[in-house]
Every structure is written in C-alpha cells, then in structure tokens.
C-alpha cells in the first residue's frame, strides 16, 4: 500500500514535469503547426544555464536568467530561422524537419560541454524529504507538483484571458482567417515559442533534481517522453497534454515501482514505458485519447 502511494506520488510529480514540457510542445504546435523536435535540447540548454550560473547568481537568479534566455533562444529560432519558411501547412512540415537539424547542432554542442559530467543545479531542496503520513516524499517532488500546478494554471489563464491567448486560439483554428482579422501571426508564433522555451527550462530543473543524480547530457532525451504525452492528448489540446502527461508519468512510476513483478519486461522498462503506452493508444485511436483535431486524419 505504501509502495503504491509512493509510486502514485512519484508519478504525479513526474507527470507534472512532463506536463510543463508537453504543454510547450502543444503551444508550439498550435501556433505554428510545427512539431518541435528540438524541444529536448532546449530543455537541456535551460538546465545547463542553471548549472553554470547558480554559483554566481544563486539558484533563483540562475533559474530566472535561464528561463529568460531559453525563452529568447526559442523565440529567436522561430523568428529568424523557421518563419522564413512561411505559415502554411506544407511549410510547417518542412520546419518540423528543420527543428531536427537545430536539435543536432544544439545537442552536440551541449553534450560536448557537459561531457560525461553530472551537473548539480544548486536547487534549495537538495535531498530533503517530508513525511506525509505513511509515505516519505522528496521535497523536490512536492516542489515539482506545486510549481507545475501554479505555472500550468498561469499558462491556461494566459490562453483564456489575454489578447495573445485569443490570437493563438484564432490562429490555431484558421491561420488565414486569423491573419485577415489582423492577428500578427509572426508575433503570436514567436510568443508561443518563447513560452515553450521558458517552460522547458523550468522543467529541466525538476528533471535534474533529487532523486535524479543531476543534469547529464541525456536529460534532454528524458524530455522526449513528453512527446507521447502530447500525442496521447491529441497534440492540439493543452488539457489533453495535461491528462496525457499524468497518464505517462503515472505509468512510468508504477512500472518502476513494480519492477520486480514486471521483470519479464526487462530492466529499465520504465524508461520506455511511455512509448509502449503511446503505441497501444495509437493502435486503437490514431487521433490520440482526447484528439479531435491533429494527428492522423484519414
């Protein structure tokens, strides 16, 4: 029972972090129709900045700067590289492949700098734990849940109540019509990319915090698990991404928690469990669990 609670809490924390990543992914898709394959390396970039800056600026300062710089980088990549291609559906496909090129360059550079090291981010939680009734939870996990909940609520408010959010939704409905109604697509898009970059940098902190050993060059790849989460949610739906992230996070944590019972699936199946879930879901529903629009229309 304690094991189960432990796994559930762990899964919730993981799901909350995936939600930050998946939400960024969905926002970019809504605004530009692009699947951002460079999302993992943007996340790694944010984490790396925190790691090198926290000695001088303190954790909070480093995090703030990392979020800003990552947001700026993401926005700049869109504005100065991707947007050259235009805004129609065909261009979006080309730009998706461009993000793979960007990912190669960015990831190679970051992996070269990080090398085989494990970087600490100097976060305030360290390896502290809190007793919650029968279970012991790492403070970093509680922080992940709390921070993600606040930030995600903020992002949803941004969608609903700001002019930018309205423009974004309009652009996602019908690019052409939105442009005719005076929506400045370039700016809406770049804004979406900035937001996604900021979310990714924030997520990096929690992916590298205890109980993870620290930031390593493969941390970006963990963030790829948010792809299945976004796919489950149907790609264009923030709410779907949220639900998908929780499904993926819980699955992963439960598989890891019950590893001994699931030994026939092999060691480390937890790492790939999200993809197994995604495949199963796609087999039954090619549009994703909550997908009305987006993947696979035949």
């Amino acid at each position: 029972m304690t094991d189960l609670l432990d796994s559930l809490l762990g899964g919730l924390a993981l799901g909350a972090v995936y939600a930050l990543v998946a939400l960024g992914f969905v926002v970019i898709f809504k605004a530009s129709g692009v699947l951002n394959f460079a999302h993992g390396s943007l996340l790694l970039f944010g984490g790396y900045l925190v790691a090198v800056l926290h000695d001088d600026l303190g954790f909070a300062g480093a995090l703030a700067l990392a979020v800003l710089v990552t947001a700026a980088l993401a926005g700049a990549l869109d504005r100065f590289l991707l947007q050259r291609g235009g805004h129609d559906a065909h261009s979006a496909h080309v730009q998706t492949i461009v993000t793979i090129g960007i990912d190669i360059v960015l990831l190679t550079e970051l992996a070269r700098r990080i090398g085989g090291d494990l970087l600490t981010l100097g976060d305030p939680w360290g390896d502290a734990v809190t007793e919650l009734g029968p279970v012991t939870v790492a403070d970093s996990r509680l922080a992940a849940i709390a921070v993600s909940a606040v930030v995600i609520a903020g992002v949803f408010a941004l969608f609903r109540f700001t002019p930018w959010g309205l423009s974004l939704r309009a652009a996602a409905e019908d690019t052409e019509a939105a442009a005719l109604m005076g929506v400045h697509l370039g700016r809406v898009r770049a804004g979406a990319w900035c937001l996604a970059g900021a979310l990714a940098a924030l997520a990096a902190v929690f992916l590298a915090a205890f109980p993870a050993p620290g930031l390593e060059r493969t941390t970006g790849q963990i963030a790829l698990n948010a792809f299945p989460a976004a796919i489950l949610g149907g790609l264009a739906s923030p709410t779907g991404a949220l639900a998908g992230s929780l499904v993926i996070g819980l699955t992963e944590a439960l598989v890891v928690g019950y590893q001994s019972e699931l030994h026939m699936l092999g060691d480390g199946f937890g790492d790939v469990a999200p993809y197994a879930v995604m495949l199963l879901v796609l087999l039954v529903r090619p549009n994703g669990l909550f997908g009305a629009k987006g993947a696979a229309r035949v």
Partner: protein
Amino acid sequence: MSDRIRALLTRRRATLLTVAVLLCLPPFYLDAFWLRIGLFSMAAAIGAIGLALLSGTAGQLSLGHAFFLAVGAYGYTWLAGDPGPGLPTALAVPLAVLMAGLAGGLFSPVAGRVKGIYLGIATLALVFLGHHVLLTAESVTGGFNGRSVPPLSLGGFTFDADRELTVLGVPFGAEERLWFLGLALFALTWFTARGLLRSRPGRALAALRDSETAAAVMGVDVARHRSAAFVVSSMYAGLAGVLLALAFRRVVPDYFGLVLSVDYLAMIVIGGLGSVAGATAGAVFVTALPLLMTRYADQLPLVAAPGSAEGAVGPTEAARYLYGAAIVLVLLYAPDGLHGLARRARDRLRRRRTPTTVPDTAVPSPPPPAAAARPKEHTP
C-alpha cells in the same frame, strides 16, 4: 528521330558501363580506410534510398529507421549464428530482409493511419522500444555487448580475410571482398527503387504526399499504400542493416539509437527529398564526413584530434555541427538539396550549349501548399 533515341540509349548504356567499371576499381588501388568509407557509404545509401521512398516520396516522416536497420543486422546475425538456427548465411540475408519487412508490416496499423510528420513521433517508439529489446533479449541479441557477426559465404566464397586471396596481384582482404558485395546490393537497390518511383506505385505514393484527397478519388487505397511504403522502406533498411553488420563484424545495441535514425533523415534531406541519386549523395556526405574529419583532424583548423582534452571540438562533433547546419540551410534555402543543385547546374550547362525556347524546367515547381490542395469545403 528513332536514330537519335537509339544514340541516346547507347550513350546512357555507355555511361552506365563506365560508372560500373569505375566503381569496381577502388579495391585495386585504395587502402582499407577508404574502402571502409565506401562500404559504409554504400550501406547507408541503401538505407537512405529506402527512407527517401517513405519520407521523400510518400511524405511519411520516420524516425524509426534505425530500428529496421537493427532488425536486418540482428536478424542476419541470429539466423546465421549460434545461438540461433544457424542457417546458411546466403539464406540468412534474404530472410533478414524479409524479417525487417515483416516488422514494418506489423507496424502498419499505425503506419497506414498516422500521416506525415505525426508518424515521426509514433516511430520514436520503435527506436526506444527496439533498443530496450536489444538490451534485454540477451539470448538472441547478446545484450549490451552485442554479438559477433558470422561472415557471409556464397557458394564456398567467404567475405572475410580468412583464406588468402590475390586478384591481379592485389591481396583481397575482407574490405576488398565486401566492396563488391556492397556494390551488387547497392546496384540492386538503385535498380528497384528507380523502377518503383517511375511506375504505378511510385506515382500513387507521390500523389498521396501532394494531395491525399486527389490520390483517393483517383483510386489509390490510401492506408494500403502508406503501409506498403513503410514495409518497402523497412526492407531496404533491413538490407542496409545486413551489410553494415557484415562490415562491422559485430552488432551492438547502442549503435541503433535515435541518433542513427536522425542521421538517415539528414542524408535524405541533404540529398534532396525523394530522389534516389540525392539520397545516395546525402548518404555518402553524412557517412564519409566524420570518418574523413577523424582521419585528417590534425590538419583541420578548429578541430581537435580524437581523444584530446575533454570539451574540445572533436571530429565527430565537428561533423555533426556541419550536417545539422546543412539540414537547416538546405531546407530553408535549397529545398531540393544536393540533387536539385546538381540538376540546376546540369541544366545551366545544357542551356549554354543549346539555347532553347522551352520554359526553364529546372525551376522546381513549389509543391502546392497542403491547405490549397484540399477541396474547399470541409472533408472530415
């Protein structure tokens, strides 16, 4: 008129013959380093041509290519090896290719229904799950350390350095022998892929990419053709995997990761999506670049020798920067890649020779934006 056509035909045949003869020469003049570059390039070209059919022609993005390379490579090793049925190696090659095709076919419920860039994410699952299986199923795959690959033997002739063989005064080791095997398999790939592209299935796939609706109302079974493209591309990947396994003489799981899939995507993008010659050129570029940079690291500015101080830009990194940037630049500034550049250069040359009034066919017509390629009213 028919004389001219005949002249043209013989000229084409002569070119083909010349190219074939030239490709047979390297083993007699170049050392093993260059032959290995050639061999890896040929294997990569076979895989890249397969991916070009799927992603370039049919417009279905795949990041799962490494998985099918692995099925081919491990399939051959298992089928011909011990543990495994220990079949004759010559039989294991086609069976491994069929296995890769079968694996692609098993994925068809997804590959047939998920379209375009979305398939890219779905295929990520193949790479990660595949890698996990390679690590876990130790009795078949050898686990983390992989397995050694039994050399291919065809009617008593073995493609390794075991028994000494001298041809025209040149000692033929494994590289020299495998070169000809690679050449034969590459020729087969080239011949079949061009045949496909220029006939009924190829046209149907291109139509699917340009407008699914138009293809469907013209009688193309959309899901069936998407699945078939995936299977065909998997089989080419399987063949490439077999050749790579023979060249490496050992298969290890970590080689068949996401990075490899991305490499193949880089090849076809740099080469110019959808063309067999372009995929080949891209494959040579992406394969040879890191190997050449490693060899000549000491003579290149800004590049450190491999194994020097940590954090320095090694040849592998330098190569990855280059082709990562190449993807971005090609797609944004020259969408038809090396193939398009070559074609434009050729057309310019030809035009200089014979001034014509024919409109410039070199200008690639921009593909119709997918939005405009749909009937105006909503078709759910």
